[in-house]
């Protein structure tokens, strides 16, 4: 995986559409495709669909690189969002029952999933702000109610919809929607409190 600074440079070079854009885009692919394929696979659970989503996702990255705002966004997160949204769409449009046999096999261990999905360790190469933000997010996830945390992790990792969550957790749709909404609200409030608080 490459750092955000290098990813930003490569995205800008890709968007420039000049000689050398293809090289920049190829390097972006070589370094980021394994992560993006992993993200798609966790949502879809089927390798051939995940490879298709990766392909379409990179097509979209090539076409829309110029709309990436280098001052605003984190480039890796931007690419992940493109691929994840596609994977979620494909999941919704495919034979869900088949995909669900994979999701039935999920173990409901949100903490294990959080550590599988994200790297929470301190990275010496990162700047201080980023390091603190990572720590706050992990701490705040830990402070959520277990049901809220589980709903958020399942929805994020596997792209489950409210309906999927309700089926999987065997709870009424309204309850699950509340968990998701409150979970995100509480997470945000907690991270904000960390930002202003004396930590």
């Amino acid at each position, binding site marked *: *995986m490459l750092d955000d600074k290098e990813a930003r440079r490569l995205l800008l070079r890709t968007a420039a559409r*000049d*000689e*050398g*854009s*293809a*090289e920049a*885009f*190829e390097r972006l*692919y070589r370094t980021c*495709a*394994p*992560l993006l*394929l*992993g*993200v798609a*696979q*966790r949502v879809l659970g089927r*390798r051939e669909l*995940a*490879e298709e989503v*990766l*392909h379409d996702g990179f*097509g979209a990255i*090539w076409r829309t690189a110029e709309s990436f705002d280098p001052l*605003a*966004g*984190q480039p*890796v*997160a931007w690419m992940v*969002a493109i691929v*994840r*949204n596609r994977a*979620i769409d494909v999941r919704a449009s495919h034979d869900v029952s088949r995909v669900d046999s994979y999701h039935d096999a999920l*173990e409901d261990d949100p903490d294990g999933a959080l*550590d*599988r*999905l*994200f*790297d*929470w*360790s301190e*990275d010496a190469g990162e700047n201080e702000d980023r390091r603190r*933000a*990572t720590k706050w*997010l*992990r701490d705040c996830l830990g402070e959520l109610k277990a049901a809220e945390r589980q709903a958020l992790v399942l*929805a*994020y990792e596997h*792209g*489950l*919809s409210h309906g999927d*969550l309700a089926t999987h957790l065997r709870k009424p749709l309204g309850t699950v929607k509340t968990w*998701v*909404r409150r979970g*995100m*609200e509480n997470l*945000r409030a907690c*991270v*904000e409190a960390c930002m202003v608080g004396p930590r």
Partner: protein
Amino acid sequence: MRIGNGTQLDALCGEYMLGTLRGAARRRFERALHEEPRVALQLRYWQALFVPRFSKMIELQPSPRGWKRLERELGLARYRAPWHSRAGFWRAWAAAATAMLALGVGFQLLRPAPEVTPLLEIAQLTGKADASRVTAKLSRDGRTLELRAARAVVAGPAQSYELWLLPAEGGAPVSLAVLGSLDARFALPPGQVGRLRTGAKLAVSVEPAGGSPTGSPTGAVILVGEITA
């Protein structure tokens, strides 16, 4: 439709990032992102709060045909720098020239280069039984790992041994190999090259044939040793 302020906008940003905003509601939100600056600003704020780093554990190698297909379908050839202006071309040329020179010198000295990659011992894995000591050696280029058991250790028909890396910085164990015997030599997964450093540990667990079904150790850990590279 205009998106309301405050709570409603925050709820939409949260659900959009999480992925639970679907169908028409997501399309409406995405349209608003382009048309209404305050919506884009608020989403940007949300994104800045949540910036986790993804774990290498979820990475998968795409099919080797993937890039070729993308390159063809997007017509990338016309966005390539011409061959003579590419740094890579001159680097390759320099490497080739150096290799030719080295080859010439080699012939003159009539001394063939040694073919074996030297291996350096990086860890001793030990368990309860002292006799079952395993030495781990790493090739100089860090890509090949060799295990040598003091005493032959072979898995039963329904078992495999799985070798794990316990990263120095903490985090979940990473599977390096599924083995039938603790005398083995194999290429490390590309993502793990360079991670077998001082402070990390190697461990061997007993798993069902074919390796752990969950991606984490499920059976008894029989050997463990710290890396001192």
